[in-house]
């Protein structure tokens, strides 16, 4: 009797599980978050990498589009200033593991307005678990980024 009861419970659990997977696809929620990681820029003088670059991913309410802001980035190693650059109108396609980020061409915001000198092209990236990666061209400068989610505890620190 005990064995029968255990089998029934196990079957019920399997049925419940199947029922859930059939109604809601297994997609992670795409939320606004901050990341910290390395930015690689293929400048005319060669490849250079900046570490500890903060990126803010800001999703819309529907999470079908987003903007990405890169903080304090340089596009040449000898550039005497670093800039905060926001890439708007990124299309977000949700996947089972996170989301795919794409933009063909968009003018970023920097220094208080649109900055066409660094028009973003071929933006491709994804968010998987707690990691964001993307590559793009700032004007003609190929750039890539890989960063990890900044946990709330880290932010407080």
């Amino acid at each position, binding site marked *: 009797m005990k064995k029968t009861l255990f089998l029934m419970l196990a079957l019920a659990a399997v049925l419940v599980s199947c029922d859930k997977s059939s109604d809601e696809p297994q997609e992670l929620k795409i939320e606004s978050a901050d990341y910290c990681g390395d930015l690689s820029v293929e400048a005319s003088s060669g490849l250079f990498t900046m570490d500890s670059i903060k990126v803010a991913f800001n999703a819309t309410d529907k999470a079908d589009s987003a903007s990405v802001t890169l*903080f*304090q980035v340089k596009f040449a190693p000898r*550039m*005497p*200033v*670093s*800039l*905060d*650059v926001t890439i708007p109108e990124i299309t977000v396609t949700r996947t089972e593991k996170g989301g795919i980020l794409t933009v063909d061409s968009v003018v970023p915001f*920097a*220094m*208080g*307005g*649109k*900055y066409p*000198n660094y028009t973003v092209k071929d933006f491709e990236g994804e968010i998987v678990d707690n990691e964001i990666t993307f590559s793009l061209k700032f004007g003609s400068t190929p750039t890539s980024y890989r960063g990890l989610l900044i946990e709330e505890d880290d932010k407080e620190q």
Partner: protein
Amino acid sequence: MKTFAVAMTAMVLISILAATMALDDTLTQNLPMINVTALKEQVPTERIASAVSSISFETLRKNGTYRPNSLSRTIPGLHIPDYGASMTSTVYLRGLGSRMDNPVMGLYIDGIPVIDKNAYDFDWEGLNGVTMLGGPQGTMYGRNSMGGVLSLSTISPLEDSKPTVRLEYGTANTFRAGISFTTGSHAFSATFRHTDGFFMNVYKNRLTDPYDGLSFRWKWERHVTERATLTNILQANLSKEGGFAYGLWQDSVLHPVSYNDEGSYRRLSVIEGFKLHRCGDEFKTDVAGSLQLLSDDMHMDQDYTPKSVFTLQQKQLSGAGTLEFTLRRADAYALWQPQTGLFAFYRLNSMSAPVTFKRDGIETLILNNANSHIPEDIGYLAISDTRMPVNSDFLIDTWNTALFHESVFDLDRWTLTAGIRLDYEGGTMDYDCMARLHYRFEPVMTADRELSVPYKGTVSHRHFEVIPKLSALFRVNSETALYATLSKGYRAGGFNTQIFSDILQNITMNAVMKDLGVHLDRKFVSVTAGNTEYDPETAWNMELGTRFNHGPFRAQASVYCMNVSGQQLTVFPPGMSTGRMMTNAGRSRSIGLETVMSWNPERFRSHVSWSWCDARFISYNDGNADYSGNRLPYVPEHTLDAGIGYSFRLGSRTLDIDAGLNGAGPYSWNEAGTQKEPFRLKVSGRIAMVLGDTEIYVRGENLTGTQERSFYFKSVGKEFFASGKPRTIMTGITFKL
């Protein structure tokens, strides 16, 4: 050092000569009393172991000395360059002094301390005379008396004093009127002065330094009982003036004054003081208190050019209260004469000091500086405002409390003095600053963005000082005395308010960049509010001196060595900074000699006041350069005042003819010693006809038209000088009714 040795030798020789010349070596305990009512010392000035200079009001009047600044050089070592406006009475004494904030000389009017340096320069009338105690007087007088104390004694209704009227007119349409009289328990004095000014602003085509000022004093004094005297003194000064006659120094040429913005100063200063003196059987008690008000408003073109670069307004409303209680032994001939006192004061100063950057200033000082950091291919910053105000409001309170004691032992030929003061001072500054602008980053931004940058906070300081004093005076005979003194003085610390426009300027630029999302590798750096507090300056003084009085001949000489710690000096931050700040520059030492001689037999009169001072940094590195060993700026190596005169009797009339020389220098204008002023002499003269109680005179100052530079500063990398007054001729009449 060689000169110091010569000076020492000279002083010793004077002493020996004086002792040899003495005709009567019988000691006289009761030396002639000079009016010392305005001094705290228990003994007559002859027995004070410090350099003492006393000048009667009659002498001051004849010399045309009608305000404290005019005493410069007349008292050996005292240098108060005449520049700017009435608020800029910067005092240099014995290598001490700085352009801003706390003075190195205490000023007392009938024993009431003048708390605010901005009220130091005023026209006087109805004085008995002035007395200067040289060297640190911190034990008795406390803060800001490390170079000396200037004490003014005014006419009293308890003394005989003829009503006097004075009228004077001369160069630059200068008119001066004064009146003083006593009636019953009251003494009144008032003086008015007008001048059109001496220096033309060629850009505005008008004189830049006109002056109108009125001073008034009412003194009520009465013996309220057989043993008690009550005094009330109300003094008010009201003035409205131009000023800041600064010309550009370029290619070794001093250009005329030429600037476009307002330069003016208005001031109302009121001091209400009271004193109660009671002489009991055992003790004398003195209570002195005051309430002081200062309201002033200064406008300054800070670039001093015809361009609209930037201006400063500094408006203050300051109130202060002082109270002092002293207890001393009633028997003035007792062997031991102790004096113990308590002093306290509180001052609250509300100050508004907005700096307004105008169009040229926004372009040259702000945008050029900011855009030099930004690569051209990225863009450039633009500010559309024609005026960019940087408002700075301060509320500064300062308090001080002190307990002091001095014991004087009169032992036959010796007068020994030991004293100590425990002085605790503190202050707090609340600052509330705001910069506001409309900016645009070209070509990216299509519209202006408004940005407000607030900067608020509080800084405070506390300092405790122990100020001891030891002195010994030996009376060789009735005419000669020698003394030695070891004393300490201090100048209070404070807050740099002038540097806040610089701080705000840098904070604003950083805020603009942050707002834009542009991060400079090299930030706009300046000091912060936390760096604006500076510490007290302290000085130890070792002094040897002698006095000699023989008939109409009087001589006094002293040599001193002062060691100064935490010397307060004005520093201009490097680069295109617009502000200036006080800093404790390190250590310095001053050695010097001061001497006064006068010989006044019958109708002939002569005097010489001369000082020599070698003041050098022991250690001072401002971060850019090491100035150790260099002379301290603004401190003259020599001051000289000499004069001769003769009174001719013409029947019932007297003809007075006097001639004088007055000079100071050489001195450095900056720490590096790259700008120097040579020793310059000015010639003065006076001819007066005295008919009974009426005197008619003509007086000339700087008769040779010596061109002297009286002040130097840098603004936005440019050098400026103020010139000394040109030749002036005054004619006047004095009635004694």
